């Protein structure tokens, strides 16, 4: 079941990376893999395929000897799976077919590596060790050193083709994690909350750049329409630094909201921030600002015609009236 799922994921990754027949063709061209190379590889097929298991074992023994690969080697499941795939790889490497199926096999192995946290440089070291073993085997079985060298160079083209795919996949996987996290952060940090009928609150936390300001404004404008908001309280207590650019973004958000018929109250400009703004000469005259969030909400309620009053006896015992 997990295998099936990871297989369909492999396909998705290949698709997302743009790994297809054409790009594989281009990759072949990049390492100049020619028909005569295939003939040379066919010559050494027997010698390498016979010892695939032994070479595979040596590859992992080599990794086991490296401190930096310790975390990877501790992951027994991944190592087991990688070992299987590696032996298949060695057999396929001299198999003569380097099309889509072969590339997908490389991709699968690379994803096992990257999920188990094997670093690219460590992998490259071990792969080099493996090539040396294969080279030695070729030298032994060849009729002359010249022939052995040529055969090995042919195989090396395939090896570099493999490295190209594997490194690309490992980099892609790492970038994917980053992309996913960025998306999560973006979604988390721009909530628009309705706190009363027709009153929205927009707490902004962190730094505002152009991209985020855009997302923020778009999100707010849509919420204004969906919730039929008349007043928005925008709280910038959590914005560490407000400079000319950020102030400009805020002004734009406010202007856009106003075009949709909603009034924006900005709250939470701290003493330092307001001093900086004054020093920078930023004109916030177009903004309705109130010191803190509480004040902003009170003002908004008043604008909407709400009248807040406290009932005499607090419902929570001990709060505000300890004697009762």
């Amino acid at each position, binding site marked *: 079941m997990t295998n099936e799922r990871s297989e369909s994921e492999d396909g998705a990754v290949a698709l997302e990376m743009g790994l297809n027949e054409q790009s594989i063709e281009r990759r072949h061209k990049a390492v100049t893999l020619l028909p005569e190379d295939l003939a040379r590889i066919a010559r050494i097929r027997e010698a390498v395929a016979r010892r695939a298991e032994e070479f595979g074992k040596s590859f992992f023994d080599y990794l086991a000897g490296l401190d930096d690969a310790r975390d990877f080697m501790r992951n027994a499941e991944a190592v087991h799976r990688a070992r299987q795939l590696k032996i298949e790889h060695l057999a396929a490497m001299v198999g003569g077919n380097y099309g889509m199926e072969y590339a997908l096999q490389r991709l699968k192995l690379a994803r096992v590596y990257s999920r188990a946290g094997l670093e690219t440089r460590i992998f490259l070291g071990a792969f080099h060790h493996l090539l040396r073993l294969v080279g030695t085997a070729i030298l032994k079985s060849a009729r002359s050193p010249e022939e052995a060298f040529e055969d090995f160079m042919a195989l090396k083209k395939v090896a570099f083709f493999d490295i190209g795919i594997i490194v690309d996949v490992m980099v892609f996987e790492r970038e994917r994690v980053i992309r996913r996290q960025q998306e999560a952060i973006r979604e988390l940090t721009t909530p628009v909350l309705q706190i009363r009928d027709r009153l929205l609150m927009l707490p902004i936390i962190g730094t505002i750049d152009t991209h985020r300001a855009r997302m923020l404004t778009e999100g707010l404008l849509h919420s204004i329409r969906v919730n*039929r908001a008349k007043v928005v309280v925008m709280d910038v207590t959590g914005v560490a630094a407000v400079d000319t650019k950020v102030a400009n973004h805020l002004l734009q958000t406010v202007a856009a909201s*106003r075009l949709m018929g909603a009034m924006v109250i900005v709250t939470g400009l701290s003493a330092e921030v307001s001093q900086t703004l004054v020093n920078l000469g930023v004109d916030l005259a177009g903004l309705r600002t109130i010191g803190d969030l509480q004040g902003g909400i009170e003002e908004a309620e008043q604008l909407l015609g709400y009248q807040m009053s406290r009932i005499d006896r607090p419902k929570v015992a001990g709060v505000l009236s300890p004697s009762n």
Partner: protein
Amino acid sequence: MSVPILRQGDVLIASIQVAQTDEDLRGLRDQLATEVGSQRAKGVIIDVTALDVMDSFATRTLRAIAYSSRLRGAHTVVVGIQPDVAFAMVQLGLDLGAVSTALDLDDAIDELRARRSEESRA
């Protein structure tokens, strides 16, 4: 295509349904300027919900309508600017100045009513 102007009590409602050429907008401006006087309107509502583009000319014309109606005693409210349109306008630096805006027709009528009662109190 010219925009029909409806009358509801003492409010004129112009609902723009399709994209307007500059010529059309000029026509609307002139027509409203006349009708505010002849119908003795106290309010003008311009509904732009159907517009998905608002350029500088359209913005300027809306502003002109609002200011000239003001001079003739009617308050103008622009309603239904779409989120994307609002964002684009701000990016382009377009501004409706002191013209009132509202989310939809309901809100615009509320706004005009509130303004009226405020004025009568004053």
